[in-house]
């Protein structure tokens, strides 16, 4: 079976986000003053083949912890869904 894991990696709240700050300032200077804060992160979409949803989920978490996420400064959220329509 095939699953798609959507992973959102963000900086921990206390960590400085230079990109987000700069984008916020840019939006303000463009007149979008009602944008109060901007935080930037990464998005990743993994296509995983696995026997079960649980196995796919375990694998995705494993991959996040081992490679995709830098636990020193980042955290992540993960959502998984079965790929409908089988193989792409």
């Amino acid at each position: 079976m095939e699953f798609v894991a959507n992973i959102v990696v963000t900086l921990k709240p206390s960590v400085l986000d230079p990109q987000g700050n700069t984008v916020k300032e840019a939006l303000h200077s463009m007149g979008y003053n009602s944008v109060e804060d901007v935080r930037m992160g990464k998005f990743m979409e993994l296509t995983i083949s696995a026997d079960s949803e649980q196995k796919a989920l375990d694998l995705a978490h494993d991959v996040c912890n081992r490679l995709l996420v830098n636990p020193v400064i980042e955290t992540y959220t993960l959502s998984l869904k079965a790929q409908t329509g089988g193989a792409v």
Partner: protein
Amino acid sequence: MKEQEVTLDLVLEHGLTEEEYKLICSILGRQPNFTELGVFSVMWSEHCSYKNSRFWLKKFPTTGPRIMVKAGDENAGIIDIGSGLAISFKIESHNHPSAVEPFQGAATGIGGIIRDIFTMGARPIALMDSLRFGKLSTPNVRRLLDGVVRGISHYGNCIGIPTVGGEIYFDPTYEGNPLVNVFCLGIMRHEDMALGRASGVGNSVYYVGAATGRDGIHGATFASEELNEKSEERRPSVQVGDPFMEKLLLEACLELLQTDAVVGIQDMGAAGLTCSTCETASRGGAGIEIELAKVPQREKGMIPYEILLSESQERMLVIVKKGREEEVEAIFNKWDLHAANIGHVTDDGMMRVLFNGQKVVEIPAKQLAEDAPIYQREFKEPAYYKKCKSEDLSAIAQPSSYGDILKKLLGDPTIADKRWVYEQYDHMVITNTVVAPGVSDAAVLRLKECEKLLAMKTDCNGRYCYLDPYIGGMIAVAEAARNVVCCGAKPLAITDCLNFGNPMKEEIFWQFKNCVEGIAEACRQFETPVTGGNVSFYNENPRGAVDPTPVIGIVGLIDSQDHVTTASFKKPGDVVILLGPIESGIGGSEYLAIAHGKKTGALPEFDIELEKRVQSVCLKLIRDGKIKSAHDISEGGLAVALAESCILGGVDSTALGASVDLPATSQRLDGVLFGERQSRILISVDPSDVMYVDDFAKNNNVPVYKLGTVENERLQISCSGKILIDERIADIAKVFRSELESCMS
């Protein structure tokens, strides 16, 4: 974080001793509160106060006719280079942050050293990086190298300062505790010099740059500890760098310093707001009062302790003349920077800190900044020292193929071309780079402001310093000087970054003390004063301390473009000559480590008088136009130096070769080929100049050997007619050029 009651346990937790605490109480005439304890603990940490090293650092020569600002007086020293110009340069370590988070650790290291330079009023024009890692066969080492190089590349490229040189060694001793030392050099007109002083009662204190967060609280104390599992828990003290913010700060500060509205300026580095306020006050012989509520803050609910100790990056403190505030604010506004007027200069010598009007800190600034205790640590010669020194190396077998050893050495990541690294660095921006990384022994920069050029390099062989710290320290300076001499420069001054293990261990302290004495002696001999530097202790991993690694950053002055010399052979038919002794032992060599797995032996004889003669003969010959290429003989010895001069000689596929015949010898041939005796320079000269060069060297009591000629395509090395090495340049070039990259992909 919450305020805590000050108890002895808490004092010890802050890394202070009971005696130090008593001293604090007597300075204050009372017990410190929680915030004040934090303030003292960072200012009196090893990192800020140099309490364990200062006694020995005083051995360094720091004066000279060109010195305008001496080591230790300000953030960085200043050296006159004539024509109304001066330079400021310094090296600093970011080892511990880089071990925990290589990308951000290295990036913020670059940010920090750049601030040290522009705070002096100099425009930074060059960076160098001196790196040490474990063996690349370990995945974690590859991860660290990748992260560190990306971090330096990210910050240096973005801010637009070229990384023009550096060095990397790979040795198991650094596994788990990499060394990341970064160097920055800036240039200024004499009249643009700025100082980190607060004076003039009533003058305003401005905070400018990034907002303060809870970054790196206790970074300074963190750097003063060994790495262990606990350091993992301290991970929040990792900071994220913002090179864009720093670029704005750099431009705004330099623009600001063109006005006369500024009394003093200081970056906020280790110990942040605490260090910058008490040091400026102390240097200016004044007091300072600030209101923390006015400090721009990134996070909610920070307490005074946190605001004062935060090590958020990209912040500066500026002391502005009363009445000139608007002018200053206009410049910061132009650069989209938020500047906050957070206080003023006082006349009572106190560092006074308010929080919403309430007094939270009141400490005599001078005593806080300058009266940390100075310790004379115990030292003891380690057992390994004599054992290694007297090790009998005669049983070590000669290799079956010298050619194979040559290739092995050329592909050894410590020796191989570092293209994979320096191509990730913008080394050309600012358009001064006349000799780029990988071309020569040092980088050469032209100056747009005058006819002169600068040569610069970092150097240190930790293995030599392990085997013999005193001689190793001398060699670090000698090799650095030799590298710039090979480019046609007269060495001017040095900066040093002393990377050692735990100074509380007597054997480590012995290494430290001996290295310092060796460096100090060499600096006196070469008349290159020390203009500043940095000490990094506690470089240990679970297996013990790293090899003592006192990295030397050197800068030399080249009078004219005509003197710029590179390492590569230039033309077939030119004569290859060795300046300096030909024979060498194999003790302490990369050959011994790579081919035989040994870190031992007595270092080959080192005579500093000979070293000086070799260097001055080489420089004189360069200035007289007699030398077409000059290359320092270092790791890998004569054979590797010959190979490098050949490989570097060609553009793309047209590399040059050489054919040399070494004089008959009774010494071991692996030593002659790969031994690392110092005081040797490989040069090539036009056939018509051979006699002159030969006579000149002999008249100056420098050994000189006519080895052979520059050829095409092959490197042939024989010894009294017997062929030892015969390789196609294309083959050895491939190994030299591609090995580091293939390790990393």
